[in-house]
């Protein structure tokens, strides 16, 4: 693809690049260097060069945290996709004016602080909370369900928090999907599921992938949700990093944990892009 219109001067990109360079890239470099340093006796950083921090992360204790984070992020992505696709399709097929109203509704939760919204979930999910009260009153359950402070609670919180990130890119591709293509498949004897698998999904794949990346990456590094909704023993990588930096004050180990997380994300996205390129060239 080539850009349209006149060639723009390069300095238009300079302010943003400068900002990112000073406030993102330089700190990132510092953290990278710290990940190879050693922990000082009273916190702090002793400047040596060692791979010990990375080696320490191979401990099964940490590996379990990474595995749990990957599983929770993957489940979050899957549920967001399952919930978000029908919603995005529904919105995309509404009259133009109603589409805008729907999109605002999807966005409304962002108007409230994320922390406050997560606290709200505590009130919903706790033993004497809204969910249990309603279920008990309806006689659907006899004993309150213990959801809060479990992986299920984290999952619910993550799905809630990241669903809009799935809906927006899906809406963008679905609203550009020519409705007559869906009708054509239907007319050519495709049953509704075949219409979805053979026509809609292949044509909206970019939106699906964008949505999955936008949900998976932040979900993998989430720390507020697991901190508030998860139990004392259910840590995610985000909590581990926070814990190492702020509680244990082992900055080098925290830095190494951050870079392993980043490495996982970069490798995942790179693998996806490679697969996409192969698909396109075949």
């Amino acid at each position: 693809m080539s850009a349209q219109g006149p060639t723009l001067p390069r300095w238009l990109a300079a302010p943003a690049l400068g900002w990112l360079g000073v406030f993102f890239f330089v700190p990132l470099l510092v953290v990278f260097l710290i990940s190879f340093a050693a922990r000082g006796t009273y916190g702090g950083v002793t400047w040596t060069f060692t791979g010990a921090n990375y080696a320490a992360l191979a401990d099964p204790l940490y590996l379990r945290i990474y595995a749990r984070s990957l599983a929770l992020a993957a489940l979050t992505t899957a549920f967001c996709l399952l919930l978000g696709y029908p919603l995005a399709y529904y919105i995309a097929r509404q009259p133009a004016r109603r589409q805008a109203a729907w999109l605002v509704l999807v966005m409304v939760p962002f108007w409230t602080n994320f922390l406050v919204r997560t606290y709200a979930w505590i009130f919903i999910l706790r033993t004497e909370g809204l969910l249990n009260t309603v279920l008990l009153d309806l006689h659907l359950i006899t004993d309150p369900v213990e959801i809060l402070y479990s992986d299920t609670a984290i999952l619910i919180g993550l799905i809630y928090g990241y669903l809009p990130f799935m809906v927006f890119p899906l809406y963008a591709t679905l609203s550009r999907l020519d409705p007559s293509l869906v009708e054509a498949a239907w007319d050519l004897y495709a049953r509704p599921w075949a219409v979805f698998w053979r026509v809609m999904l292949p044509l909206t794949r970019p939106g699906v992938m964008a949505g999955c990346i936008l949900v998976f990456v932040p979900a993998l590094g989430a720390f507020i949700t697991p901190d508030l909704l998860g139990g004392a023993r259910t840590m995610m990588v985000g909590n581990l990093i926070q814990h190492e930096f702020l509680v244990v004050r082992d900055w080098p180990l925290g830095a190494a944990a951050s870079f392993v997380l980043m490495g996982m994300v970069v490798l995942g996205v790179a693998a996806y892009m490679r697969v996409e390129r192969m698909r396109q060239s075949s």
Partner: protein
Amino acid sequence: MAEHSVEMRGVVKYHGTMLAVDHVSLEVRRGEFFSVLGPSGAGKTTLLRLLAGFEHPDEGAISIDGRSMAEVPPNLRPVNLVFQSYALFPHLTVFGNVAFGLEMHRVGRAEIVSRVHAALDMVKLTGKAQRYPSELSGGEQQRVAVARALVNRPSVVLLDEPLAALDLPLRQEMQMELKAIQQQVGISFMCVTHHQEEALTMSDRIAVMDSGRILQVGTPREIYDSPVSSFVANFIGVSNTVTGLVRTVQRAECSIEISGLPPIVARCPQRIAAGSRVTVLVRPERLILSREAPGVGVNALPARVMQALYSGKETVYLLRLTEKLTWKARLSSSEAERERFQVGEEICVAWDPQEALVLNE
């Protein structure tokens, strides 16, 4: 086998409060090229969508191949639609597009390959099977869309303005080709168009439609030569019209009085009595222009040449008969060469009374 591929009985369809299809009854005979001709907004596309199953009639019944289509979803109907925008699947090759319907019907692989290639040969796309739709010209895309429908051997192929997106020379070529393909495969075609020439050249029968209603059904010749209303006459080809009062009826001829002009004589249909108001229609190509008044037995009106439009194969003259009445005369090149008229010239417009059509108002 049912005699009719398509039968619609008293079909009514509302879009909101707007009546899109108003008690339409028609049938498409087996193996026939049937066109629905009408201006945009006449409800033609709705008619096709009702047959394809994307919309459901509010009243009336539709049957295809003698089988009622009530409650039958599009994927189970023996029809295939050629969309106006072609609606080719951009992520599939030409082969993948044409094979789609067969794959959905779980036809065997070997049969799919042979039928797809036969269909592509028929629409002259041999060797383009591995291309993607975006790599094809508009005309080629149109052929893929036709092949994608034909390959399934449906009871009827529905075509929604099939040639509208093509430029003129290609459109004329495709008109002949579509007709040839339809005759070759013997499948009924139901084509919706707003283009009268397209409908006239391709169709076995035409239904003229306006505001959701069918105004007339007949062969192209019937529609062209004996339109039932001035709307049909105008739509099927530009007509010159003038209204007047019937003064006398003598055998099959009537004399008609027109305000501001000499009386004219016309072939008089039945059911018209002296004193009725009528519209007289004369086709532009049936007018004879001359400097001197012609002999008796011919209608002749004075006119002033307003404009002469030369377009190679013909010359169109705009003629002013009265302040409010402007007619067109269409002269073939050989006719026009014989005598050229200048803008502003006072001439005589004449026609054989047999050529004029009289419609009751």
